[in-house]
């Protein structure tokens, strides 16, 4: 009875600083959760450092201002009259006929940033914010707005949450997406005012008790914002702003925000956010969201009490700075608890970008912009095939995997997407993708060479299991994996074959002998259920 009622182990561990063992296993756990896949080079780089130093470094991005997306689309069929191939289009001029081409360029560019992420949490947090402040590019259909929106999320990814909410509120893409630019004093549009409270700050938890009237009142405060499609900035038009006083419900202590005229009307937004951010629920809501993104979707009573609540206190005490929260989380006993390792189903982006990074897939360099963007587009497309088209989440609520009770992350895996994941890894192992003399492919020999003992079939399998899986697998299963390398022969023949290749590395016959067998092994390893877990 007990066993069925309590299927899984739980933890009481909280935010006390983790002082347990700090081995490659814990390093991999931290890297998998904060980056897209843990690469061999990153593991090696970080494992000599202390846990605290590693977390600090991961929270300090170095590539903070990436160069913007480029024209990769000039071809026989499409030609941008203003922007040359290889130049950026983000400064305009706008050109509706090129919207699709530029949006594709933006998607590819974003994939490129994730593939080439620095040793930091920056890209995973940028995607977190995209899921949080979800907008759909195919709805607002402006690639320049899209770029600016993306940049906003990235520039503020580890900054001040309250400032980010303010910036997003008047961000051109968001103003189009949630009708802010149609919000006017005569007929307030409540769309953004609702999501601001329901999805972006307070959430719908039981302690979030804002009212329908609060939505309408907030909408009036937000009247007057418009987009300038020449300089791609938003601006405040006092003439469209509702200048009456706005009074909120008892949830907000019946607060009245005094109506302002002229340019001062804009300041009501700051007062609105001050009022909302006084609510403890904001910090709790956000900490739960971070928890579901980085740890696991189920937040049991112990986690609520021992993790979410103290984390929310840290968030408030630091004036809604994000870094202290992440620092406390990633240094906590809770984060490293065995219960929380290996339980996160990889999102499509995590799976796909991680697949490329962990296997050292080489992409064309920047001298080949067309081919480079083409290959980055492939990565976008495989994410899209798995139902995570970044840039276009299914709705303003983001991807259901982060809110849909009770399935949550399991939504990513179904009878359509799981075979696709396997097909993607199969194709990358076997043939890769070619274009214009360039190819992205997993080189199985290069993969084997990342490990210390590739000549020893069983050691290589052990090391690969540790690298690709969090969970261990049985010795029977490892023996089966080893059989891919041995082809029914004694283990010494693998060693001979490997050493023969190493002794004459330019001999393609010798190389192919080991490559063929490694391909089978890699394909198999990546097709097992264990490979879907982070």
């Amino acid at each position, binding site marked *: 009875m007990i066993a069925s009622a309590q*299927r*899984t*182990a739980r933890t009481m561990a909280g935010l006390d600083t983790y002082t347990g063992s700090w081995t490659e296993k814990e390093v991999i756990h931290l890297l998998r959760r904060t980056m897209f896949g843990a690469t061999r080079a990153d593991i090696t780089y970080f494992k000599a450092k202390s846990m605290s130093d590693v977390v600090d470094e991961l929270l300090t991005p170095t590539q903070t201002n990436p160069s913007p997306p480029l024209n990769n689309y000039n071809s026989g069929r499409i030609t941008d009259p203003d922007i040359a191939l290889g130049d950026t289009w983000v400064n305009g001029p706008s050109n509706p006929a090129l919207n699709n081409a530029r949006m594709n360029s933006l998607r590819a560019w974003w994939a490129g940033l994730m593939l080439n992420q620095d040793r930091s949490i920056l890209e995973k947090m940028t995607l977190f914010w995209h899921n949080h402040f979800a907008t759909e590019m*195919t709805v607002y259909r402006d690639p320049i707005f899209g770029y600016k929106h993306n940049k906003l999320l990235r520039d503020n990814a580890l900054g001040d949450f309250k400032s980010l909410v303010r910036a997003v509120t008047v961000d051109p893409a968001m103003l189009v997406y949630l009708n802010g630019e149609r919000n006017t004093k005569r007929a307030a549009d409540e769309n953004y005012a609702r999501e601001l409270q329901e999805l972006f700050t307070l959430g719908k938890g039981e302690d979030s008790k804002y009212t329908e009237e609060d939505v309408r009142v907030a909408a009036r405060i937000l009247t007057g914002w418009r987009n300038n499609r020449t300089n791609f900035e938003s601006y405040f038009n006092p003439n469209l702003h509702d200048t009456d006083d706005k009074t909120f419900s008892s949830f907000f202590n019946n607060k009245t925000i005094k109506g302002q005229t002229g340019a001062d009307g804009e300041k009501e937004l700051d007062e609105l956010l001050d009022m909302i951010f006084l609510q403890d629920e904001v910090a709790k809501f956000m900490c739960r969201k971070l928890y579901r993104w980085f740890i*696991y979707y*189920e937040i049991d009573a112990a986690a609520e009490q021992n993790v979410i609540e103290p984390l929310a206190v840290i968030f408030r005490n630091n004036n809604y700075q994000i870094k202290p929260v992440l620092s406390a989380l990633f240094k906590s006993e809770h984060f490293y608890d*065995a*219960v*929380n*390792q*290996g*339980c996160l*189903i990889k999102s499509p982006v995590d799976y796909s970008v991680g697949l490329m990074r962990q296997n050292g897939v080489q992409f064309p360099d920047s001298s080949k912009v067309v081919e480079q963007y083409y290959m980055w*587009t*492939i990565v976008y*497309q*495989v994410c899209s*095939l798995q*139902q995570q088209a970044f840039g276009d989440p*299914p709705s303003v609520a983001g991807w259901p995997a982060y809110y849909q009770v009770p399935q949550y992350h*399991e939504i990513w895996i*179904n*009878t*359509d997407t*799981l075979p696709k994941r396997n*097909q*993607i890894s*199969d*194709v990358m192992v*076997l*043939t*890769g*993708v*070619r*274009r214009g003399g360039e190819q992205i492919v997993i080189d199985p020999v290069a993969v084997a060479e990342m490990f210390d003992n590739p000549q020893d079939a069983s050691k290589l399998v052990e090391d690969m299991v540790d690298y690709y899986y*969090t*969970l261990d*697998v*049985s010795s029977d*299963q490892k023996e*089966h994996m080893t*059989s*891919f390398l041995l*082809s*029914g*022969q*004694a283990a010494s*023949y693998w060693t001979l*074959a490997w050493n023969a290749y190493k002794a004459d590395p330019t001999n393609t*016959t010798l190389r*192919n*002998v*080991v490559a*063929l067998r490694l391909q*089978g092994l890699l394909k*198999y390893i990546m097709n*097992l*259920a264990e490979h*879907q*877990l982070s």
Partner: protein
Amino acid sequence: MKRKEFLQSTIPFATLPVLMNGLPLHALGQPDMMNTLSKAFVNTDHVLVLIQMNGGNDGLNTVIPVDQYSNLSKARSNIMIPLSKVLVLDGEDNTGFHPSMTGMRDLYDNGKLTVVQSVGYPNPNFSHFRSTDIWHTASDSNEEWHSGWVGRYLSNEFPNYPVGFPNDDMPDPLVLQIGSVVSTVCQGVSVNMGMAISDPDAYYQLVTGNYTQSPNNRAGKELDYIRLVAQQSNAYGQAVKTAGEKGNNKTTKYPDAGENRLADQLKIVAQLISGGLKTRIYVVNINGFDTHASQVVAGSTDTGVHANLLSDLSEAIDAFQDDIEQLGLKDRVLGMTYSEFGRRIASNFSSGTDHGAAAPMFLFGANVKPGLLGDNPTIGDNVQVQDNVPMQYDFRSVYASVLKDWFCLEDTEVDSVMGKSHDTLSVLNDTCNTSSAQREALRRSGEAYVMNYPNPFTAYTTIRYESTGGHILIQVFNNQGQVIETLVDSEIPHGEHEVVFDASNHAAGTYYYRYQNGELQQTKPMILVK
């Protein structure tokens, strides 16, 4: 239109064709209307069972050239089988089998087994891996091919695979490998055609979908979930499971499970064939032929490692053949053994033999031309340590014969699958009865005349289709089978065309679009998300 062109013209993703096979039908519950298109025709029902003897089999102690006994004894005195124990073949006084091979000797004597002597290839390679690759790809010794001969044969028969598979015409795996991983032999032109049931135990693992016990924690919970989905999405796994349940074994000759791994595997093969699986080729393995040392027990040379291996081989083949006959399947099944090379004529000082060259192959079944093909190798009276059995037949001639006489390929097709022209041998009766029309129909199975993108979609999706000329009807059904839109209903000229389905007024869910162009009819699912 060729599938490849079709995909290339739609998205820049043609290089990942396997991703484009849309949604697996079984995941959508396979409504009745999906079955109305099933075509009934006779399949080519010939099955080939390949037995790979990993390690390099010592052919000279397997098929013993009795007339060379004296010279051979000099070259390998420490491992030579006593002449009195050799199982001399009926009507072939100069040739006999190893004393362990009573079962296969009986098959030979009863006309169900044929021996092809001294099979190899020019310029033999003595590396296990490299020589295995040569046997699998059927390349020349100095060439590197990346596809296997079985894979190329199946690519020829099912050019659309894996897009549109499984389907009503070919609902089952094209080739099943039991006992090892899917090997190069199954690698087709672009994708591997094989499915592995990794070993007899894993056959049950496939059914239960489990390898390593999942831990009792959050990770274990998610692992169980993913495995469940994996099981559900593996249509072939289900087909194999069903065939396994329906099938049975009839002979009492199989040893107990676990005693003879090859027999265990062949028993599963017989069970699956009797269960109705349409799989064309099964690959099974017996490991351990790399007998450098202690191939025999000193002083008792008819016992030891090699004797045990040949005993397993013979017992397994004999039991399997008996099973197949009792199951009434004898005209459908052909077996063939191969090994990456034979072993040296001269033995070494460790009572073993080192890597060699040519060796015999066995073919068995009711439709082999019984007997011994070829002459005994000639053994000189002064064998040097590096001397090898010279090749008498090229292994690719054996393959070509199987393709021509068992799988009924035209000569030009045989050449195309083999990559070059090889002589064929008279080892099989001509039992080809599949018409070219039937083969053509199979070849087209899985071909896409219609597809949509994107899928899933939010409001609009584009349906691309090919017209062979004449009337085209494209209708959209909901999941109750009701027609909700007719998108095309007119004469459409030959070529590729597109029509957009506007679903903005329809609820989220699964829809089906049905394409009809005379005899060509296809129905496919698409998913509307909101």
